[in-house]
């Protein structure tokens, strides 16, 4: 199994456009698509999966046994998220702030805290007409905790031997993006040549560096203007793998719900080349770490490219 996370930093640079075209270009790798943008998943608009399974994602939140509670306040001190407070001599829980870490229950000297499941979202899975396995997370409206939903989505996917897994990341560089990248073999960063795109690309490159993940850059809307992209990539030692020019026809096709490689089949070969180059880099990375750790090979390759 090989996992590529498609991320960006700046929103609206074309992560989903690129991620969906990637899986559509390599059917022989029996791709699995994970839409990890659980606050606003939209890859289903391009891949049209038929969802046949759904399971609820919950986090454990504290429930107080008032007869046992001594209002000592230790729970409020250990809570990093200010989700629990002793007010008016009683412990008050604010479940919408709780991250489900369990510290309060573990620390309570009276054993007065029991953890109960609170639903925060769901995972939906199915198959698209093109044969991809498709999974997406969906955070409930009003919930502010996307990470447990992304984790559950990754758990559903599990180990898929010999398959290509593409994770479509939420924008930004905060916890949900980090969780999407964690455990991936490679990060494809989609950016655009604007000051904002460049600024957020640097933030995203910092994250990949901290996670120790190999990364490459795809410049979308190439020709739109801002210089400096090459310098930044050089500074971080990551390659610019592909450029997609700024063209009105691309936007029009996407607005009609057509994936880039379906509206413009000439792109298929370019996406296969992109994928081949990513898989090659992953192979080199694995070879390097194998010589250190002696792990088993599990490379995948495109037909006619092994």
């Amino acid at each position: 199994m090989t996992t590529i996370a498609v991320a960006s930093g700046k929103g609206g640079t074309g992560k989903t456009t690129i991620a969906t075209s990637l899986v559509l270009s390599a059917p022989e790798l029996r791709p699995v698509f994970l839409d990890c943008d659980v606050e606003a998943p939209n890859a289903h608009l391009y891949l049209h999966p038929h969802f046949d399974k759904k399971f609820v994602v919950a986090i454990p939140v504290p429930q107080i046994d008032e007869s046992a509670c001594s209002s000592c306040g230790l729970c409020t001190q250990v809570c990093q998220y200010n989700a629990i407070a002793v007010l008016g001599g009683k412990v008050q829980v604010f479940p919408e702030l709780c991250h489900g870490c369990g510290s309060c229950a573990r620390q309570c000297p009276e054993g007065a805290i029991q953890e109960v499941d609170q639903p925060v979202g769901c995972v939906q899975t199915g198959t698209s007409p093109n044969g991809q396995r498709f999974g997406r997370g969906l955070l409930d409206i009003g919930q502010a905790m996307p990470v447990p939903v992304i984790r559950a989505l990754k758990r559903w996917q599990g180990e898929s031997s010999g398959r290509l897994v593409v994770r479509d990341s939420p924008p930004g560089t905060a916890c949900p993006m980090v969780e999407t990248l964690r455990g991936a073999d490679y990060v494809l960063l989609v950016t655009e040549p604007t000051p904002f795109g460049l600024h957020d690309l640097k933030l995203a490159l910092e994250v990949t560096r901290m996670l120790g993940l190999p990364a490459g850059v795809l410049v979308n809307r190439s020709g739109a203007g801002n210089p400096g992209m090459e310098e930044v990539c050089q500074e971080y030692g990551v390659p610019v793998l592909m450029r997609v020019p700024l063209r009105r026809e691309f936007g029009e096709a996407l607005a009609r719900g057509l994936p880039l490689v379906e509206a413009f089949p000439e792109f298929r070969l370019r996406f296969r080349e992109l994928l081949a180059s990513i898989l090659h880099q992953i192979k080199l990375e694995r070879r390097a770490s194998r010589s250190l750790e002696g792990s088993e090979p599990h490379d995948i390759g495109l037909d006619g490219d092994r």
Partner: protein
Amino acid sequence: MKVAVTVNEPDSLAWLERRFARCAYYLIFDSLTKAWRAEANPAVEASSGAGTRAAQFLADHGVEAVISGEYGPKALRALNAAEIKPYSASAAPAEKLFEDLLAGELQEVESGGAARSSGRGA
């Protein structure tokens, strides 16, 4: 009765900070002695739950009423549980607002509030 006023400087002439849980200081006035002291707000840079943390802080200091501009819904729930009365005021020096409260000229906040939840990426 102890009354807290949200401000950004430790001075009784400092003007009101309108955000309940994101002020730099709480000026805590004593209605009997008229004395005041400034307490740094431990919740000012909290990534989440600033309102509940701030309410806990005021409750621990025995505050019974607070004067600010806007309160979030969780802050109001926490203040309500702690039996601290939230009052709403517009821009003025802290000392004047404290006197306005004693004169019964300030409006107690009933419900509602500004922020609904934390943003993306929490």
